[in-house]
């Protein structure tokens, strides 16, 4: 992915950055105990990755 900004990320890097940051925020806002937070962050991150990559593959046949 080419860009003109000072920060140039590939698609997967931008996707991972977004998923990690949002998952951490959701975990801390949604749960109180540290153990619950870690579980929620990991679960949220997994869902972000699975759904994001899944939607990407679903769109693949229409990309050409």
């Amino acid at each position: 992915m080419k860009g003109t900004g000072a920060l140039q990320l590939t698609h997967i890097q931008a996707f991972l950055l977004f998923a990690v940051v949002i998952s951490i925020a959701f975990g801390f806002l949604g749960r109180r105990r540290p153990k619950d937070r870690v579980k929620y962050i990991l679960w949220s991150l997994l869902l972000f990755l699975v759904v994001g990559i899944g939607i990407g593959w679903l769109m693949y046949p229409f990309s050409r």
Partner: protein
Amino acid sequence: MDELNPQANPPPQESLAAEPAASPAPEVPADGGAVDSDAENKAWGVAIAGWLVPGLGHALQKMWGRALVVFFTVGCLVAAGALMRGNLFTARGSDAFDALGYVADLGTGVFYFLARSLERHGADVSHAGGDYGTRFLATAGVLNLLAALHAFEAARGRKA
């Protein structure tokens, strides 16, 4: 005597959180609506502070972990979005989508101005990076509004 003073023994937050959603109107405290009004004003102050400075709403309630996480996650998204030259909407938008984008970007509070200062050369959405940057900026704003709402509810004793 403390047992008779409702201020000395406030009800635990868990009991409020466990209150069913379909319950009737909340009971009026024994000392009238003054305490409720003060708590409501404080909650609004917390919400506005949390919107203006990401994490401040939680910091005012000594929720340090949440305050730091909100500050750094919103800041990270704003910095990434601006450095990727995402579109930072202004009040001079031409259509409803620009207006919605402006509202979302304003959700970052003071970080909106940080993003403007980082984008010295303006937005460039001709590349995918700029388009992703636009989403990062909007997400940062919405995330901060969500955090401010969370701080507001916590200040009202509804959720923490």
